[in-house]
């Protein structure tokens, strides 16, 4: 009911709104992604690399000082401890194994915060494939350490110079590259966005997060399901992975946290569910921030990874169906939550994940409620921003 249907839709969202130039590539992927992913050899290779290279399973950690502070039982799913520092590698590893089976020689990717770019550059180095990463010029400036990492790993980083020069524009450039290189190139999309089958494929690769949460919670709490699962949403891949195996457990409350930027009504926001309406972006029908003329609005968030005017179609469906609640958190609230997490838990979270942390403050949970928060990434890349705002 919450999964993609055979036509590539989640309810009324999704589909594959792509120019004919991309049809053969996307169709090839659509026809074979499930067969490849279900192949025993593929599964073994993927699982082994997740364990030995990424370091999975990532811990499910009972954050006792945060729990005492907020008076609820808070578990952090430590995706920040993965190799490359975020959940992104789960997907890039899966897709690179898939690209190899498709015989592709060249990998392209878009990146916002740089986490997906680094994760892509990493697996390309691992597999010896050429890697080109498109990144908005604005993001290149605010995420310099990740740009350096990608280059060190052998990737070519190409700045996107159009529009708001952030994630949306980097994605446009990656799609244009794919149009121009239809034979030998695989596009590793970093989130549950893009034309079908990407949203479903990426969600499946990220679903390892919730599969592990179930098993780990069973050993910690004697039950597989928490009362709440909390995750930040830009495109929505970490949330899709954290929600995946709980979608049909209606007792589990799913909370997705969007970036309100400077505030919902300030004109500087990325809260798509509040500010958007149905539209088409990057090949998918979904909730979209846009003008009345149908031009895509330039979003804003302090966090480059949440700075996206659309959202994965699965989330648009979870929003519309009411299965998940969507809330939003401002830049300042996210910063304050990041600083609190540093102080109480000794964990420097990514700015993206700090948005999920900030919502804890607003939750009305009982002291005995079990809350699993997906700590999607670590904050090394955000040090410059944190240092600039330290006196808040």
């Amino acid at each position: 009911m919450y999964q993609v249907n055979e036509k590539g839709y989640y309810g009324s969202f999704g589909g594959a709104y792509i120019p004919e130039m991309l049809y053969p590539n996307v169709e090839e992927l659509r026809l074979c992604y499930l067969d490849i992913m279900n192949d025993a050899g593929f599964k073994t290779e993927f699982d082994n690399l997740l364990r030995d290279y990424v370091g999975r399973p990532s811990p499910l950690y009972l954050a006792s000082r945060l729990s005492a502070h907020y008076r609820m039982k808070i578990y952090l799913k430590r995706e920040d401890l993965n190799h490359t520092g975020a959940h992104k590698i789960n997907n890039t590893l899966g897709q690179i194994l898939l690209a190899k089976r498709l015989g592709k020689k060249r990998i392209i990717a878009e990146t916002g915060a740089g986490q997906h770019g680094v994760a892509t550059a990493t697996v390309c180095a691992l597999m010896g494939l050429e890697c080109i990463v498109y990144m908005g010029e604005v993001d290149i400036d605010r995420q310099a350490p990740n740009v350096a990492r990608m280059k060190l790993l052998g990737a070519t980083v190409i700045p996107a110079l159009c529009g708001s020069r952030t994630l949306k524009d980097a994605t446009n450039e990656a799609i244009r590259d794919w149009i121009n290189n239809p034979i030998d190139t695989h596009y590793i999309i970093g989130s549950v966005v893009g034309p079908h089958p990407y949203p479903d494929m990426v969600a499946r690769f990220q679903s390892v997060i919730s599969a592990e949460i179930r098993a780990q919670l069973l050993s910690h709490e004697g039950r597989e399901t928490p009362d709440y699962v909390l995750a930040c949403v830009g495109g929505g891949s970490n949330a899709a992975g954290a929600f995946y195996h709980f979608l049909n457990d209606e007792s589990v409350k799913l909370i997705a946290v969007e970036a309100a930027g400077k505030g919902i009504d300030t004109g500087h926001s990325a809260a798509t569910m509040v500010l958007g309406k149905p539209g088409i972006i990057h090949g998918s029908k979904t909730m979209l921030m846009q003008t009345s003329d149908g031009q895509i609005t330039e979003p804003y968030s302090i966090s480059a990874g949440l700075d996206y005017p659309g959202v994965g179609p699965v989330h648009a469906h979870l929003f519309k169906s009411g299965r998940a609640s969507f809330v939003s958190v401002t830049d300042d609230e996210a910063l304050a939550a990041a600083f609190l997490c540093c102080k109480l838990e000794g964990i420097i979270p990514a700015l993206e994940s700090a948005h999920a942390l900030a919502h804890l403050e607003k939750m009305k949970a009982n002291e005995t409620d079990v809350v699993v928060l997906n700590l999607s990434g670590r904050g090394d890349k955000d040090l410059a921003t944190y240092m600039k705002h330290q006196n808040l």
Partner: protein
Amino acid sequence: MNRITELFKRKNAILSVYFTAGFPALKDTVPVIESLSAAGVDLIEIGIPFSDPLADGPVIQHSSELALRNGMTLRLLFEQLKDIRRSIQAPLLFMGYLNPVLQFGVEAFCIQAQEVGIDGVIIPDLPFSEYVEEYEAMFTKYGIINIFLITPQTSEARIRLIDEHSKGFIYMVSAASTTGAKAGVTAVQSDYFARVRAMNLRNPLLIGFGISDNETFANACAYANGAIIGSAYIRALEQGTDVQTSTARFVQSILTN
């Protein structure tokens, strides 16, 4: 009979030119159409500017960005075009992306397009299957032809399917690329053109992407019923002094052998 169909019955070596509405200046939409028509262009494609034109290269991206900055909207475009059929006989096409059309309302869009005298549309991100299932009946009701693209990677079976649902012509994209690609017809491309021509499709073919001067235009005409020029004309408008002179010069340079 639709003006597009009528044009292909009557003429070969058809020159179709694309421009972005509201570029270089907001008020240039109608003067550009009139200059193109006066210069002898057979078919005119009016680009509806979009913030995120995925299938376009840098030249058309830039013209779209400027047009939007100038204040162009789909609503304003219909307003500008309301008397266009008083002066222009040539077939007129809209070329634009799906989202602005969706926000305008698909039926409202078809009604207004028919009212101002638009003959057809090219919407690159409206996929074939979605068109057939969701939009074909509506477009047909208002006499709007939807033009499909094929590329060197489109399978023969799919080309047949597209041909079955096409009216007017089929837009044969010359190479796997965004618009404004490097000019020239390579051996691979001529194989592809010859292969498609040998299929004896119901619909005529126009070649587009990478057509920029009289040589590439003449080459394309050797394989198809004509060709489409976009980025090269936008560049000419950008570099020229006034719309009339730039257009006349540009079109003459294409048609002169």
